[in-house]
């Protein structure tokens, strides 16, 4: 071949590869059809995305608004504020009230005030199990509406517990017992998620703190952590019980339902008088290029048919509308209907979302500092305490006193980690890397000293 031919061949190869690359990276993978493309930012996984997309595009809500496709993006939650301005979604779908309130504060969510959307919102009760099912701004306007509900509890692996002669827990307090710590340090009974890595487990810790109060709440959490292996996130935590590594794991309800379906040895339980119902929001974004399309989607999601998608066996979520159970799919899910009724009938605790939000960063990083980072020292102290009690070297009162000393919110320099202090530093904990790092160091060191001091007091 002549040089010219070689150049031409090289050029063709380079252009072809570049074209394929550009096509693959930047051209939507779904066939281009005439009509409106709905853009959705979501925390829901691709299985749910697929089911919702198929059902919605086949519905009259899509055809009446000429919506022919949906472009999804599922970024890590912490990137949402940066992704929304570039991706320009019409709808934000799933992620918890805290995230949605923060997005509204950052000017990324629109007020829901059109006639159509207000009619759709009206189908949802204002409260469910005593919890607000809709989010409002200071002007009392709707900014998000719940599209599904979740409860928080734990999943148990029954054979795991039975084999070791352990009772099936029904209350949070059960997870703090010496029985659950008797196989330490070799075999922790519980799996907990490290708070900064999991929003659902963090919500559980907030529930415990508000149910038991600040000091007693930290004692419950510390004793539970003593009995636990601490995992990076909620999925890792769930898989421990599902695969039989531990007997119990902290769970959001749909993880628990799915685990029970996949592994019949497992069962999801709502702790008696110890949970809340959390709505999972849907909202319009201020960036919406097709506001009507976004409203049509929200409208559809809040119909019984739209709600029945949650009941698919691959999803196992609880709808916010009870009417979903009267659809064809809903009729086949008696198991979930039972859970639905248990959840909404559950006597939830008096939970304050604003209070939880006011110390959320402090809680997350304090948890990591004193329970995750100091876990070796904690388990060393706790297992010695459990062992001393079970061998009758100390009585029940002494056991309780030592445990309370071990688990008390730490004191360092002249500060103690009180609720008021946690609230006062919360913003700085969220915004300053260096402040957060130094606080965590102090807390870890103080916690280790506290665990070691208590351990030294326990009779050998």
């Amino acid at each position: 071949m002549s040089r010219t031919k070689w150049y031409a061949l090289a050029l063709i190869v380079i252009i072809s590869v570049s074209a394929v690359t550009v096509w693959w990276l930047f051209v939507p993978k779904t066939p281009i059809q005439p009509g409106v493309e709905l853009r959705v930012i979501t925390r829901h996984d691709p299985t749910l995305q697929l089911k919702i997309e198929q059902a919605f595009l086949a519905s009259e809500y899509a055809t009446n608004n000429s919506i022919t496709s949906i472009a999804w993006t599922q970024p890590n939650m912490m990137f949402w504020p940066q992704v929304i301005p570039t991706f320009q979604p019409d709808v934000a779908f799933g992620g918890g009230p805290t995230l949605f309130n923060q997005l509204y504060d950052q000017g990324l969510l629109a007020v829901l005030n059109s006639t159509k959307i207000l009619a759709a919102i009206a189908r949802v009760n204002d409260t469910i199990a005593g919890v607000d099912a809709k989010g409002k701004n200071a002007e009392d306007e709707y900014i998000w509406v719940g599209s599904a509900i979740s409860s928080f509890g734990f999943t148990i692996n029954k054979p795991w517990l039975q084999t070791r002669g352990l009772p099936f827990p029904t209350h949070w307090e059960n997870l703090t017992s010496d029985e659950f710590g008797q196989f330490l340090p070799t075999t922790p009974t519980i799996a907990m998620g490290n708070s900064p890595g999991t929003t659902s487990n963090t919500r559980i810790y907030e529930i415990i703190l508000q149910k038991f109060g600040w000091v007693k709440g930290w004692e419950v959490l510390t004793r539970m952590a003593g009995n636990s292996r601490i995992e990076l996130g909620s999925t890792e935590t769930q898989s421990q019980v599902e695969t039989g590594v531990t007997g119990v794991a902290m769970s959001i309800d749909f993880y628990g339902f799915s685990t029970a379906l996949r592994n019949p040895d497992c069962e999801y339980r709502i702790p008696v008088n110890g949970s809340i119902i959390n709505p999972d929001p849907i909202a319009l974004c201020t960036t919406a290029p097709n506001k009507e399309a976004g409203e049509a989607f929200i409208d559809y999601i809040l119909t019984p048919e739209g709600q029945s998608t949650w009941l698919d066996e691959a999803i196992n979520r609880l709808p916010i509308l009870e009417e979903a159970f009267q659809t064809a799919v809903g009729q086949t899910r008696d198991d979930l209907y039972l859970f639905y009724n248990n959840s909404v009938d559950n006597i939830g605790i008096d939970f304050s979302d604003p209070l939880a939000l006011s110390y959320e960063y402090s809680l997350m990083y304090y948890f990591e500092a004193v329970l995750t980072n100091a876990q070796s020292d904690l388990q060393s102290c706790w297992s010695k305490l459990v062992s001393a009690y079970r061998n009758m070297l100390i009585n029940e009162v002494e056991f309780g006193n030592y445990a309370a000393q071990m688990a008390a919110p730490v004191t360092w320099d002249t500060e103690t980690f009180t609720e008021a202090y946690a609230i006062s530093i919360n913003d700085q904990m969220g915004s300053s890397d260096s402040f957060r790092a130094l606080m965590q160091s102090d807390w870890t060191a103080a916690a280790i000293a506290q665990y070691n001091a208590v351990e030294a007091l326990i009779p050998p």
Partner: protein
Amino acid sequence: MTRSEATSASKSNQADEKQNSNQNEEKRKKTTLEEVLGIGVAIKLRASRTKSYFSSQAYQLYREMDLFTGIQLISVLVLFLLFLILPIFQVMVTAFQVDGQWSLFWFNYIFFEDKTYFPLYIFQHLDSSIFHQHPIGLILDVKEQPIIFDPDGLVLLVQGVDMGIILNSIYVGLLTTLFSTLIGVSLAFIMARYDFRGKTVLRTLLLVPLLVIPFVGAIGIKRFLSVDGSFNLLFHETLGIWPTRFVLEGFAAVIFVQTLHFFSLTYLSAYSAFLNIDPTLEESAENLGAKGFGLFRKVTLPLALPGIEAGAILTFILSVEDLGTLVVYSGSPQVRKTLTYAIFTNIIAPTGNVQGVATAMGVILLVIAMVGFFFIRRYMSLRHYAMLSKGGTWNPRLSPSKWFHYIIFYGFIIGILTIAFIPHAGIILLAFAAPGSWGRTVLPSHFTLANFGIVFIDPDILGSIINSLVYSGIAAFIIILIGTSAAYIVARKNIPGKGLLDLLVTIPIALPGIVIAIGYLLFFSRDPLFSQFLSPLIIGAPAVLITMSYAVRKMPFTVRSTFAGLQQTHVELEEAASNLGASRFRVFRKIVIPLIGISVLAGAMMSFVYCMSEVSTSLVLGDIAAEYGPMTWKMYVIYNSLAMGPSLAAVMGIFLMILQIMVMATTNVITKRRSSALIGL
């Protein structure tokens, strides 16, 4: 003083005197220059000399350069500048900043503030009686026992000790290296120096551990060695041979998993080294009376040492930067206290920005890896490698095996292989286990092919596999273009700074993927120009960044393979073509490419398969947006999220194994068993 000592001292004095005399002469010349010519003229003269140096270098560059070579050189430099140097530089800059101000805050924090990272208290006690009485006890957290026996639960837990994040990473890396090297060198010596039946089969089997990356291997091993794992159910509960439940956790598990993978690497490296020893050297030693262990210790081992050390150091680097094993065992408090894992979990702050502490830890990890890398370069340069890759020049010294050799060799090798196949067995059983069929049973009660169906039908999982194939394919294409160019320039062009270019294209093998990933997050989101179209949060950008990280990180495999190919090709062939009037491009196309095409292809194939199985960069960059997540990221996600997750991850692991077998077999054939192509040494 004996005569020899006196002679030696005298020689030493003479040498010192000579050195002093030279230094004085040098000093005198320098003084003279300033004194004779005056300071102004001297400065001008020196400037002129410097200018002259640069002029000669520029002329050298001009002489060696033509349009084609220029394009090649610029392509290499632009790629590495943009996707390696600037991102790494950004990590280093960020590590030395707090709130936009220059500061040593993070290093002070890591080394002096927080005991979690570094056990500062060791130094505080250096002159104390405690240190002199219990130096080891002080370093080790005395409360944390490496081996715990729990009589109530009848459990023997083997974990390790916590020495703080930095020392943990180093000692885990060192122990992995030590065990891998001991096993690898022993196996290599047997295979290189003894002839016995079944050797060919064993030689092939010894490569099998390389087929399972540590991340996948850890999944298989964890299934066997957990509290209710197959080992305990079979040997403790069913057969009653083992008196307790045996649980491998923490650093012990990490070292075990990594050793089972990396011993193959040290074996290959040592095997090449033993084969390439000039037999006449050993024969000369034998003629002088050396034999047995003395011959091995004084002649064979020193000759093979550069190859063995290079393999060992590479093992250390790969062990320290391995993230896959750590994420599988992250339930252990110990494992969370390692550099790579601590970086992984601390990358993003609540504000969505990269955390300073992650960048500082990244710099420390980088320093550890770089120290190892420069040791490798010291022992084995690219040129040395090229000599190695011509393995087979010598007739290997093979000893016939006697009956007791058979017992020792087979006992040792089969014992090692049996343990080394645990991950493979675990992965294969997991892949075929029906959902819920492998609870508290030694083996799955039901087998199914359904897991394969799910992996290759589920759009989510299949999408990640396609992502990986596309990323790796494009990366391999870039690697061929740029890697071949780089190797050609290093091998054939005498341009100034060639050594630096050689360093630049080789160094990615030692750069921790997680540091590069942080560099991408920082550089491409902050740089005013590149953030416009490559910010990780722009649609499509994560795919580009993952692809480019693969291309840069896995390029050394192709560069080395191509370089070796060029070393084996006579430059006279190219000169002859040039003399006959062929242009540079024509020479490259007509002479060079046909001669080294096989080497390039082999290197590119290995680069492709290593891209497919890359973990650390993938886990960080894949997490930005699920739709761009590559296969290994998806394996991590589903492993942790579903009961059948380990089974689905195992199926994907088998897919990677099959891919690797195909590539290794092909590479083996076309490079005629040049093992160096497999490990990049």
